[in-house]
């Protein structure tokens, strides 16, 4: 790969794609490149970064709407929202430590990978659900818009959703409009010491099945020394008005006391803990010869998946989303990858090879195989969006 294009505006992106198409010279699309070590290595002639497309273009707090160019760093957006007491609903993770980078993620990167933090388990949905509108440049070197700046828009096929999570393979996001929400006044976390992961998921299910509006439900298999949590610990987060938390937290406590020793972490400690969960920090430092996988299964299947991975390669683990999101780190070997694929398949779930050395990423399926009829549709969709195959070729699947 020679050189990195950083167009300063959307027209520049269009031009770059046009040139790439004409030259049959594929582009490796990225924001700040924080996820270069994720999925498959891209075989591209040049890199194209959206990092120069930066800045918030519209913010209407009273309408709960914010638009920003794709290359805008997430912390910049969060700071602007915080000034008006608002927040990003999807609680986007900061994986710089996990991925061994220093730059912050961009809005385009978070949406392009559809990454959602712990709040995913709450009613509000995934990051892609908060995307009200996008502008993107397709492989046809054309600008398409999908959605807009209003809260509900079902006009036409939902290309927003197709582009979110397509990792730059179908189009290059240039501007994104998000729904935002007022930030809760405060938060608290109930930490319950549990005997096993299965018991931990039972605690999380009980919390999520309660009427108290749990917005985070995670399981730390090894506890958290910094906050004095030893052994497997289930975490349940409440976020709301100051006036509401005493009742909610004591009601939740009464519901869960039968499961084990219980502690309440107040606002600041709670926030620090959930930042760690959000960023998969409890997995610990990831070595150069190690890999990180992310599996999503139904919550009750989480403990069995975790056990299988432990047996297979002594996996380090973190369970979020009520037990259904299983983060795991272990040796970057084909055997470990095989174990992850098997565990996901047996749980009827999904997996992503989230970080690994190039050799492993290039030689395995980093995402689950799709059934043949769907794979055929996928190939046609890719061709429909990027006929010359110039956008992140091979990023998600070999030859696609």
């Amino acid at each position, binding site marked *: 790969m020679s050189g990195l294009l950083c167009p300063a505006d959307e027209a520049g992106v269009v031009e770059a794609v046009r040139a790439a198409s004409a030259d049959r010279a594929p582009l490796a699309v990225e924001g700040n490149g924080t996820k270069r070590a994720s999925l498959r290595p891209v075989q591209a002639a040049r890199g194209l970064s959206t990092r120069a497309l930066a800045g918030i273009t519209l913010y209407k707090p009273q309408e709960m709407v914010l638009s920003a160019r794709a290359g805008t760093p997430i912390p910049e957006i969060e700071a602007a929202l915080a000034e008006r007491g608002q927040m990003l609903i999807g609680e986007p993770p900061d994986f710089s430590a996990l991925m061994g980078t220093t730059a912050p993620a961009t809005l385009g990167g978070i949406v392009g990978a559809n990454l959602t933090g712990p709040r*995913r*388990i709450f009613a509000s949905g*995934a990051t892609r659900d908060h995307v009200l509108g996008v502008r993107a440049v397709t492989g046809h070197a054309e600008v398409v818009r999908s959605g807009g700046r209003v809260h*509900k828009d079902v006009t036409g096929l939902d290309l927003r*959703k197709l582009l979110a999570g397509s990792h730059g393979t179908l189009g290059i996001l240039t501007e994104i409009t998000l729904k935002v929400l007022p930030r809760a006044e405060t938060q608290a976390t109930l930490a319950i010491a549990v005997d096993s992961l299965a018991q931990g998921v039972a605690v999380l299910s009980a919390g999520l099945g309660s009427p108290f509006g749990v917005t985070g439900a995670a399981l730390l298999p090894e506890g958290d020394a910094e906050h004095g949590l030893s052994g497997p610990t289930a975490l349940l987060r409440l976020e709301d008005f100051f006036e509401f938390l005493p009742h909610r937290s004591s009601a939740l406590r009464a519901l869960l006391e039968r499961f084990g020793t219980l502690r309440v972490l107040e606002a600041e400690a709670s926030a620090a803990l959930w930042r760690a969960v959000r960023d998969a920090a409890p997995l610990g430092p990831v070595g150069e010869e190690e890999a990180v996988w992310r599996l999503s299964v139904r919550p009750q299947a989480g403990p069995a998946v975790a056990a299988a991975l432990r047996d297979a390669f002594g996996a380090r683990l973190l369970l979020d989303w009520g037990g259904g999101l299983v983060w795991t780190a272990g040796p970057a070997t084909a055997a470990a990858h095989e174990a992850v694929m098997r565990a996901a398949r047996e749980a*009827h779930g999904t997996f992503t090879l989230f970080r690994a050395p190039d050799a492993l990423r290039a030689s395995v399926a980093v995402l689950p195989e799709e059934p043949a009829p769907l794979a055929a549709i996928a190939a046609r969709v890719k061709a429909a969006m990027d006929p010359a195959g110039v956008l992140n070729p091979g990023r998600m699947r070999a030859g696609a």
Partner: protein
Amino acid sequence: MIALPVPDPAVLARRGEILAALRTIVPGGARGEGVIGDPIRLKPYETDGLSAYRQPPLAVVLPETTEQVAAVLRYCYQNNIRIVPRGAGTSLSGGALPLEDGVVIGLMRMNRILEVDYADRFAVVQAGVTNIGITQAVAGENFFYAPDPSSQLACMIGGNVMMNSGGAHCLKYGVTANNLLGVKLVTIEGEVIDIGGTHLDSAGYDWLGLITGSEGQLGIVTEVTVRILRAAEGARAMLGAFRSNEVAGQVVDAIIASGIIPVALEFMDRPAIHACEAFAHAGYPLDAEAMLIIEVEGNAAEQDFLLGKLKEICARFDPISLRVAETAEESLAIWKGRKGAFGAVGRISPDYLCMDGTIPTGELPNVLRRMGEMSDSYGLKVANIFHAGDGNLHPLIMFDANDPESFRKAEAFGADILKLCVEVGGCLTGEHGVGVEKRDLMPVQFTEQELDQQRRIKSAFDPGWLLNPAKVFPLAGNPALSR
């Protein structure tokens, strides 16, 4: 009348043969025939919730299994026959309007709840289960399915998926897409594909997101896995009566700006208030120009806290009255009026067209004013009922379908409203879908390039444009036309 593709004479000529073939695939049983083919009985299938547009189909098929749906699609694919999927037939955009040479596939007989799991909080249901049927099935455990379109009593989950339906409570709980985990999709080739599952966020392309709201363009959904949520400790609605539409619009703005997000924030203007009160007897303020239904959730103390703050906000805008529902029955009646609102307008006008544009909430007073001016200039009354919190308008244009001139005016008025929505930064449809109704307005919101891109995605799923081909996309540029 709306233009429909020229029927394929080859298909029309083979009608008898096609009916016979469909009957072998879907023979029917205890619940009646599987295929309807006689003209008298096809007539009631000629329209849906938008009865201004009508066209009897070639045949109606009522399958009871996914395998039958797949076999019907395979047969139609091999024989180049167009298909129109239909759920409860409650679409307000004509999503289920048939084609003369098309087979309607009705999913009403697929109405079983297949699995409910409270620990993992999901339900697997067939496409023909009604929206409220899901909530009723899990209400015993205090769970519910969140999206609640006004037609939730009748509309079916398969249709909700196809339209990405919203509802009064999506301000807090999101629309259909936010609440889906998986679907069983039958492709035009008759392949059955499981998309998603019982987990969150499948890796790979977001097929689930693309299919949701695709209006039957990409395939037919026969099973749906939805998230179910534990209901809040309680909920209470408040009615605020105001002196003008503009003032009520300002109240909405002030509420959102306060940092309190009610679970629902609904607006009705004077004609709507009167029609709905006649139906629901909910004690709506008949002396008001505009009314807001504001609902909050939580235990009694939390409700009091939130309602107290909301009352303070409302009080700043010289309300005519503020009333908090004191009992569950009162709340039910308040919602019964709102949810029956469209039908209730049938009491004051023989016919209506229901618009569904969304606007930035800040534009509310401006748009309401301009809509009033249009109403005057067209000489047609309009009742306004909408989801104020998210800017999703439902102006109901009242007309007389027995008077062709009145209908033409209503259509033009509706188009003007939607153009206005786009002009102020909004869109043509917030939750009802484009259907056939707004098909020809698509170029108002999208460039030709953008429409072409959507058409290419459609072609990737349905190369022959057999699936619901006269909907969503303008007929010009629609390959189904150029047969």
